[in-house]
Structures are given as C-alpha cells and as structure tokens.
C-alpha cells in the first residue's frame, strides 16, 4: 500500500545543508471515515530551505500541512523536531514551537477587524488592555511589506476582496518569527505584484534560517523559491527532487502519475 519513491537519493543528498533536518516526518497516516487521506508519508524540512509540496487535487497536501501545524493529529507515524520527538495535540502546541501556517481556507474571523485578525492569538497589550494604537501601527507595516492596500484597518474582514483576505492570512503567519512556515497555496488569490511580494518574503525568511513548506499549483513559482520539491499522489509521496535537478515537464508528469522516466 505504501508507495514512496524508493529509488530517490537518500535524505542527506537532497538536503541543501547536509545537516540534520529541522523537522522530520516518518510514516504519517491519516484516515477520515473510509477515506485514506495520507497513506504513510515521510518528509524532511531543513532550516533555511523551502520545500515545494505539489500534487493533484485531493492528493493530501493540505492534510499533511495541517498535521505539521498541529491542526490534525495523525493516526500513525512519527514527527521529530530538531531530533526531539513531538506529538502536537493542538495548533497551540505547534505555535509554541514556532510553527506557523497559512491555511488554504485562510482561517480568518469574519467579525473581527483587519488589525484584530493580524494579531489574532497574539494581541499586543498595555497592562490588561489591548493596545489598539500599537497594533494598528504594526499592522500597517506588516501589510505594506506584502504590497497590499487595505483602506480601513478597522473594517471587518468579512467584506474584503479575496486577495486582501489572503494577504492578511499571510501577514499573520509570516510576521511572528516562525522557525517553520507552512504556506498552503498562499498566492492563489493574489495579483501579480502581490505574488512577487510573497515570493520575496519567502526568500527573505529562508535567509533568516526559516524552513518553509510551500504548497502550490503555480509551477513557475516553485523554481523561484524552492530548493526541493516533493510530489504527492493519492495520499503518498511519490517523488522528491532537488529543484535544480528537475524541470516543469517532469514535475507535471510526476503529478499526474506519468512519472518515473
């Protein structure tokens, strides 16, 4: 049933640093009802690199990402963070370990304003009270870095455009010094300039030593930021390539199962 790519080069070789992985997943499985979302997946993430996670729709990319972020608890498998076994019971556990995620569904609170969503779960306070002024000031910086324009930071996010909402989710995850940053299709609703800004952001955080996982269907972006690309198929990881060793056609073939050349 397991079908990981056995012919791929051993771990050390695909890693950019040759060192120990920041995070390491082994044999991750997850079943929903009768549906095997993940059928035993291994994945390493190294500090300062970006791993692209690609695959057909419903291949299990989001499920795997959520497991790393503590949102789902795997049915089976092991996770190691800096050589230490971890078992996240909730996203709070993962966040405490500096793992942040941009969710595909964004996970915003529609009834809370832009600032509030940016600082959700990490509100700035002055004494026992929210420090709204300070948060607004920082929020402006956070959004400016993503080149997104939001006229009224105290407007509820409910009414914002798709791209504006996505930018908020990205700014929230990226702004609090994560060690591991998981981005599940972060640029799907963004316009050209904003996509550039996000790709720039990824390259910047990589330089700071952050390990990034980028789930995306935009193949051309992979080659601009990723060091390594993992391909998923029907709940398994079927291949892993260094970006410099592969090309678009190969990846597309791998995704749809015409791989293995």
């Amino acid at each position, binding site marked *: *049933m397991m*079908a*990981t*790519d*056995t*012919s*791929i080069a051993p771990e050390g070789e695909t890693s950019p640093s040759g060192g120990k992985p920041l995070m390491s997943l082994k044999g991750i499985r997850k*079943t929903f*009802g*009768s*549906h*095997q979302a993940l*059928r035993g997946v291994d994945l390493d993430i190294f500090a300062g690199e970006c791993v692209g996670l690609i695959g057909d729709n419903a291949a299990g990319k989001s499920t795997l990402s959520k497991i790393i972020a503590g949102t789902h*608890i795997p*049915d089976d498998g092991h996770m190691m963070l800096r050589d230490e076994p971890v*078992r996240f*019971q*909730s*996203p709070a556990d993962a966040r405490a370990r500096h793992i942040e995620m941009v969710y595909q569904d964004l996970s915003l609170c529609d009834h809370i304003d832009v600032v509030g969503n940016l600082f959700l779960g990490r509100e700035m306070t002055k004494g026992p009270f929210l420090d709204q002024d300070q948060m607004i000031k920082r929020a402006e910086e956070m959004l400016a870095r993503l080149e997104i324009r939001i006229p009224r930071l105290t407007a509820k996010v409910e009414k914002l455009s798709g791209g504006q909402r996505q930018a908020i989710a990205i700014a929230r995850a990226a702004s609090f010094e994560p060690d591991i940053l998981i981005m599940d299709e972060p640029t799907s609703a963004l316009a050209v300039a904003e996509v550039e800004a996000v790709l720039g952001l990824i390259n910047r955080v990589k330089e700071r030593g952050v390990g990034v996982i980028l789930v995306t269907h935009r193949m051309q972006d992979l080659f601009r930021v990723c060091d390594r690309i993992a391909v998923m*198929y*029907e*709940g*398994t990881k*079927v*291949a892993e390539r260094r970006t410099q060793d592969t090309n678009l056609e190969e990846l597309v073939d*791998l995704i749809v*199962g015409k*791989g*293995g*050349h």
Partner: protein
Amino acid sequence: MSTTYTERVAGSALRDFVTDFAQVLSIATFFIICLVFFGTMSDVFLTPANLLNIVRQAAPILVVAVAMTMVITTAGIDLSVGSQVAFINALAAITISAGVPWPVAIVLMLAAGAMIGGVQGWFVSYQGIPAFIVTLAGLSIYRGAALLLTEGYSIPIRDADGFLWLGRGTLLGIPVPALIAVLVVIAGFVVMWRTPYGRQIIACGSNLEAARRVGMPARRVVNSVYVLTGVASALAALLLAARLGSGSSNAAQGFELQVIAGVVLGGTSLMGGKTSMIGTVLGTLTIAVIGNGLILMHVSPFFTQIVTGVIILLAIWMNTRLFTGTWKIGKGASNG
C-alpha cells in the same frame, strides 16, 4: 528512477455511515436503552396500552416538532408555537361553541395558523429581523390574545363528537392523534429527504447567500417554513382541544421548549443546514418516554425534573463519546 503509483483503497463504507449518521444512531441507541430500562423497571411500561398512550400524548409535540425541524434547519427558530397552540385552541373552542360546524372550524383554524405563521415568517425573511426576536414577540402576543379571547375561562367543547374523536378516538385500535402524528412525520420525512423543497430548506440554512445565488427563492422558502409551524401549531391545538374537550389560554405553556428540545436532541443543528427528521421523532419520543417512565416508576415529583435533566444530559454525552470515535484510547482521544 521509477516511482510506484498506487490508488487509494476505499475503506469500510460502514465508517462513513456511522460518521454521517452519528447523531441519529446515538439518539436511537439511547431511545432503545430507555425502552429496555423502563420496560425492566415497570411491568406496565411495555404494554401496548401504555405505548399507545405515550404516542398519543406526544402527538401534538411531534406534529409541531416536524415543522420546527424545518424552521431550525433554515437556522431559524419559532418560540411562539406554544402561544399559537394556546391561541388557536381557545379560538377553536369559541368557534365550535358559536355553532360553526367542526369540520369548517378545523379548516378555519388551520388557515388562521398559516396566517399567523406567514406574518412572522415575513418579518424574518423579507425584513431580515432575527427569528428569535420575531417569535419571542409572537410568544407574548399570541398568549396575550388567548387570554383576551377566553378571559381566563376554559371553554368547553360540546356536541361535537366528531371533533372530540380527533383527540380521543381510535382507528384500528390506534389513537387518532397518534395516527395523525405518524402521517405528519412521514410527510415531513419525505419532504426533507427527497423533494426539491426540502433541498431548498437545507440550502437556505446551510448557506443562504449561496441558495440565493443559485436562483432559489430563498426568502420565500424561509417565509414558508414559518407558515408550516403555524399550520402545525394549529393542528396541535386542535388535537389538544379535542383531547381536553375544551379550549384554554393556559394550554401549552413551555411547549416551545419541549418541541425544540426534541428537535435538537435529534441532531438538527440550531446553526442551520444540519437536519434529521428521524432524529426529531426519536428525540421527541425519548423525552415523552422519560416523562412517562418516571411516573410509572413512582419517582417523587420533586425528583422528576432533576432526573429528566440528568438523563438527557448523560445520554447525549455518552452517545457523543460513543459515536464520534473520540472514545479511542490514548492518542487521538482529544481533538485539541
């Protein structure tokens, strides 16, 4: 390099079934436990006479619960049903006492129920006022109207044996109110399960804007479910009047909570979209069975309220743990 591509194997369909129907399975299990428990504790409980008794008593609640399931499925609520029952029940007694032939009175009452419900539904759907507020106002208004109509008298219904038969008679050995309730339940079930109208109700509760966007008459649908609770309340009022042989403003106090309790216990979600007509029936009957069983067991009336509450709570708790699979030992036991 060669990679091995394999397709997923579909797991047991039973697991999907259990997941999809967790709430109904849970209330069904608990219902059966209740039957067994009270059956063991009291000789009388499982006698046909007593079981028919329970269904007859539950009939007015069941009838309204069917319509309430639809209202709650649209993410609405109707708190006014008890007051509507009192109002129509009083009006029916007055109408029949005034000499209007009872079949005509029945038609008039059902029409009055539809009208009352229609007005409330209009405020909810076309005016966008929260259903809770509209029907809370209705709760006050119709109870007041019932008071005003009867001035506190309970108005006897005489010389209308056909009418009283509705509440007290039997057909093939089965109490008429029970038969009527069963018909209403079947109709409600079929509507929700397999008709475009039922689909519209679910869609409006699941995502009202999406329902509107696909061209459904979303407002009309939302309006209509309140018409249904109105008609159902009128029918329940007729059943009650026929059973009591009188109409009184005192009838059906707290009725709304009983009805809603049955619906919610059955798994229909107050947040809309999630619905189960079978669940409603089981939820309503469970509450009726507990009430009946405790009396049969001679539990002191000072304890009945406590015991009823505790049983309901523990039941739903036990079943949540059983069917959502969170009872697995060790990891995965908590979901966060």
